[in-house]
């Protein structure tokens, strides 16, 4: 794929030019779409974030520079929401990774019915997020939820519990619902990556006297690093922006204990009529996600693996 650095012959030069022209031709439709539906709106929102922009027709937009950002950074609700969103992201992605890796290894060890297990994992992954949220909302329901029904029959609770009103439980329950939906993705990615690893590596290590646990951590996991990186980036970026599932299960309650940063942005932009603040918030979300992606790439990508 490396390009010949000495394109002296006339024919080669024209070939390269032809290539570049072809590349642009192929790219133009996609670039136009991305410009129109992403780049332009983002710039427009960025500009908005420097204004005090109350919703309304005859509202005067006043330039406030970084005012919206500074207000946010000084606001306690903002930091609490960031903390909560990070909690959601770290716990749900962390558990997804651990459980996903465990299940991937389980499938890889080929117990009876492993094909059925792999097949089953696809189902929760394909269930729409909103259906997932609605389903768990009713599982947690205080009056006729399956969780209450199950725990009562197992004798673990005496009375039905209003789970979603418990301030320290609500976010964890949302996380369980999220894990149900997204952990299969991680498990399937890691399982597929495990399957590509050469078997003889393992056997060689076994001959050297490494036990199964050591073999797993010292040989497989390092080789899985690129797959883990992909799973982590995809999941972290999505988890940090979580909205749908919270919106359906708790609407941010109780007492904002499940309010996430995207939800706060939505509230400011559409319910509180503060579009400038909303725009600034959405920018901070983008900044955070891009920052996190960079951190992952830094930590997990070794230089020799980048090419």
């Amino acid at each position: 794929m490396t390009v010949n650095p000495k394109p002296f012959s006339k024919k080669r030069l024209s070939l390269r030019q032809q290539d570049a022209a072809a590349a642009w031709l192929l790219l133009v439709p996609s670039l136009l779409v991305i410009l129109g539906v992403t780049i332009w709106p983002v710039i427009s929102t960025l500009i908005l974030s420097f204004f005090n922009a109350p919703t309304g027709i005859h509202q005067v937009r006043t330039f406030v520079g970084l005012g919206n950002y500074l207000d946010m950074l000084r606001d306690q609700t903002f930091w609490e929401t960031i903390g909560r969103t990070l909690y959601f992201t770290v716990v749900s992605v962390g558990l997804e990774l651990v459980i996903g890796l465990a299940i991937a290894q389980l499938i890889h060890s080929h117990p009876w019915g492993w094909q059925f297990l792999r097949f089953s994992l696809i189902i929760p992954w394909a269930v729409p997020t909103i259906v997932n949220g609605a389903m768990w909302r009713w599982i947690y329901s205080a009056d006729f939820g399956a969780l209450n029904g199950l725990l009562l029959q197992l004798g673990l609770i005496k009375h039905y519990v209003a789970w979603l009103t418990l301030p320290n439980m609500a976010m964890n329950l949302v996380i369980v619902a999220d894990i149900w939906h997204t952990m299969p993705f991680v498990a399937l990615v890691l399982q597929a990556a495990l399957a590509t690893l050469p078997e003889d590596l393992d056997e060689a290590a076994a001959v050297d006297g490494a036990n199964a646990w050591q073999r797993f951590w010292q040989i497989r996991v390092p080789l899985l690093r690129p797959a883990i990186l992909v799973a982590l980036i995809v999941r972290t970026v999505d988890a940090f922006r979580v909205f749908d599932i919270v919106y359906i299960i708790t609407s941010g309650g109780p007492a904002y204990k499940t309010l996430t940063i995207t939800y706060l942005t939505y509230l400011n932009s559409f319910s509180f009529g503060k579009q400038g603040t909303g725009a600034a918030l959405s920018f901070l979300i983008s900044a955070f996600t891009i920052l996190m992606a960079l951190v992952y790439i830094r930590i997990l990508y070794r230089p020799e693996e980048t090419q």
Partner: protein
Amino acid sequence: MHKFNKIGLWFVTLILVVGLAGCGPQPAPNAAPANTQPAAAQPVTIHVLTMDQAGIKNSEVDQIASQFEAQNPDIKVNMEYVGYDYVHDKIVTGMAANPPAYDAAMIDVIWPDEFIKAGYLLDVTNRVTPDMKANMFPASWNGVTRNGKVYGMPWLMDVKYFMYNKDMLQKAGIANPPTTWEEMVDQAKIIKQKGIAEFPVIWSWNQKEGVVCDFTVLLFGNGGSFVDANGKPAFNNDKGVQVLSWMKQTIDDGLSNPSSVSSDENAVEADFLAGKSAFAVNWLFQYSDSNDATKSQIVGQAAFAPMPVFAAGKAAGIKSASVDGSSSFAIMATTPYPDQTWKFLTYLASNDVQTKYSAEMLPVWQNDFQGDALAKLEAATPTNPVTVPAFLAQFPYANERPTVPYYNEASAALQLAIQEALTGVKSPKDALDEAAAKWVQLAGQ
């Protein structure tokens, strides 16, 4: 921003061309024709946003619209229904466009100040006829009038009602429904002790507007108010703190269903209709639903009582206290068709229409409740003989939530405070003080 709009327009047009070329045209058979220039012969289409509600059914509103269309062949009405939680935000996004996405929209009683400030609502003062002015409830006009200007057409008068389950009270040996909240607590204890209901009371205390409505009911029933004479927050004074502490106490005592903290009015109705609670505070629709056998296990058991007050409030001469939950229809300021839209709103609010569909929604015409008209109204539907007197008894005690342009954010702060206290995160006093500080900050902005 305008420059950007144009550039954006360009891009989207290009994308559309590319997109259509890629996948073939995407016909939208059901798509409503958009607002276009009023050509002389062409009928005009008006888009009306309203709430997908439990009271009057969408199919009934559709009927009203088609009757109107039959009488006015030059106007087509396109009704759009969304859940209550979405109406406000749909109006805001809809007004970002010109012409607006909607020509008229349903406006909750708490929104006019915000929307007037935003310039969304058309001043209709000169369109209101003397007949409307004189014969609709003054309260319904107050809801849409600011500084002497009228910004909407009254549509629905509602308050929160106190409903109880007759059979449950009878089983518990209780002769009369409570008149004070303290009495309700005593009765609830009996009902709980006798095992008639595990949690005898259900409320809509989730983190939405419903909890502010219930708080309003209780606050005014304790002689409290949202702001004092100087306009400073007063809901965090002793009276407010007492109310919030009482709310928390009823949950701790197992009298109020703990699920109240995650319940909206919908969940309250579900609980009450399932025969799980003896007492419920809710809007009018819960009554007719409670007599609908497809939804209810307590057909014939629901009854109204005047909304109780606290003993302290009663001693101070307060007979009952509820909250106003009325709504109106407003014309969007930038609509190209204000005349046609007003014509439709006039039809919606007309006496005939309001009487015909009065099962879940009583008329905004006060002359319907007087003299011969009253008998006619009570005969209009099977539930009216019960709901009409209940309305007449309760409506005079409806209290208003604050009328400020930043209401949504103020309400959100109060919802947060109440939930923090109910879930034990903060003490009632601290939580309300913080909300009050937020109100002061909002008022200063």
